[in-house]
């Protein structure tokens, strides 16, 4: 009780500061340098900019490879980042522009449409999977859904190249095949990550919105005509 009182009024006991001769007062006062040491290990402020950029680019590239060969890996989920989804979304939106006959007032809203569809769709799917009892976090889910748009972006590039050669039945058949394949790949890749975090009998409930989401994007790619 007295010690607590002493501790709460730390300067009360020092009102008479006097050191008697027979108590040896010695030792060394050293400020512990632990915190600054810890900071040095994680501080990335002093490294060259190239290192920072290369590290982030390597992380993004690593995740792209994971989408190409989808297998559940906790490392991918742990270090989520939204650079890849942003890059893919902007690329897709730019490629999908100018797809209407009267394109003078369609450029802006089309870009915004792709953005809105991708990001709000991802947010809604994430909320849905969390409400269904999923164990994946909000940003991890956004990260997975964004990265799995990559096959569809590749399909968009292929479609644009095919459309350069004309827009007949053959080109439509080729585009249809490519878009269907990439749509299936996207859905499969994202469910490899998302559905695992669900109880087994509810996987279909999570897969359906993902299916709808990628279906809308795939259909937008397929019906694009310059």
């Amino acid at each position, binding site marked *: 009780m007295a010690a607590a009182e002493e501790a709460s*009024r*730390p*300067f*009360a006991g*020092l*009102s008479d500061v006097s050191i008697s001769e027979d108590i040896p007062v010695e030792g060394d006062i050293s400020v512990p340098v632990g915190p600054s040491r810890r900071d040095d290990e994680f501080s990335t402020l002093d490294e060259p900019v190239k290192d920072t950029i290369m590290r982030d680019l390597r992380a993004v590239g690593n995740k792209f490879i994971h989408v190409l060969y989808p297998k559940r890996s906790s490392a991918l989920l742990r270090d989520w980042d939204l650079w890849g989804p942003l890059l893919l979304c902007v690329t897709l939106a730019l490629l999908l522009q100018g797809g209407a*006959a*009267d394109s003078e*007032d369609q450029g802006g*809203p089309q870009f*915004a*449409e792709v953005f*809105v*569809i991708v990001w709000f769709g991802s947010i*809604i799917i994430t*909320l*849905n999977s*969390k*409400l*269904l*009892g999923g164990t994946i976090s909000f940003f991890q889910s956004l990260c997975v859904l964004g990265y799995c748009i990559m096959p569809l972006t590749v399909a968009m590039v292929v479609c644009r190249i095919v459309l350069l050669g004309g827009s007949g039945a053959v080109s439509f058949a080729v585009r249809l095949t490519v878009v269907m394949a990439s749509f299936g790949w996207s859905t499969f890749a994202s469910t490899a990550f998302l559905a695992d975090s669900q109880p087994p*009998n*509810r996987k*279909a*409930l999570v897969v*359906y*919105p993902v299916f*709808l989401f990628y*279906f*809308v994007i795939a*259909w937008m790619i397929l*019906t694009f005509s310059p």
Partner: protein
Amino acid sequence: MENMDDTSGSSFEDMGEMHQRMKEEEEVAAEAAATEDDATTDGEFLGMKGLKGQLGRQVADEVWQAGKRQASRAFNLYANIDILRPYFDVEPVQVLLTCVLPVQKIAGELYGPLMLVFTLVAILLHGMKTSGTVIREGTLMGTAIGTCFGYWLGVSAFIYFLAYLVNAQITMLQMLSLLGYGLFGPCIVLLITYNIHFHFLFYGLWLLLGGLSTLRMVAALLSRTVGQTPRLLLCGMLALLHMLFLLYLHFNYHAIVEGLLDSLEGPNMASMQRVARDVPEVTLNATARIPGTLLRIR
């Protein structure tokens, strides 16, 4: 989450208590800061200026912790999606069956209705794009989402209000669920008729599938209402709005295939007028009520 232990009432009823607790915490933190301040001034008085910096840091820490606690409590209160978690507790088979079969016991869940509304949004987008609709002030996506969600939420609220007036035993959640599942028929109809443009086909499907889904909703409502007039009012209103919505969705966003224009539009215009003559004032009211964007109606 300690503030979500009791989910029997709305968590917003606890808001007053939450505010009280937050104010008390604020006062406690202020008191702690005040006593720390006193200790600091004591220290100054006693000449121990060297340690004041450390005390200052402790005070700042304490205030920061208190502020963080308050912010996280406010966040947990307002951005807590766990409020909606019980409404998503379904099995896939259950959702599929409720879509198709008539039920007397309305499932109080929101997953099926929400997914059906989103499916309708996707189908509507497809219809808008194939008909080449141009929306000058806004986006296609915004209009599609606004139409579908506006219908689902608005008509649910309206029918719930009517049900409240006539003392029907239905809750808002049940009404949302009922109307959401009732959109299954229109989804199928629009999916078919946005791609195959035959007016007779549309009218047939409108009556068949639209009528069946309306009948299902009406049956569920009938069993919860007493009295002839209330039943007529409630069920008639719901049937009218549902059928008219399907009609509106089809005719606003459907493409006219050039070759069929002459052959089909003639007799069909006459039949449209027949429908209009039957209930002229209600048709007029319905089209006037629907919020208009600048659409080219083909």
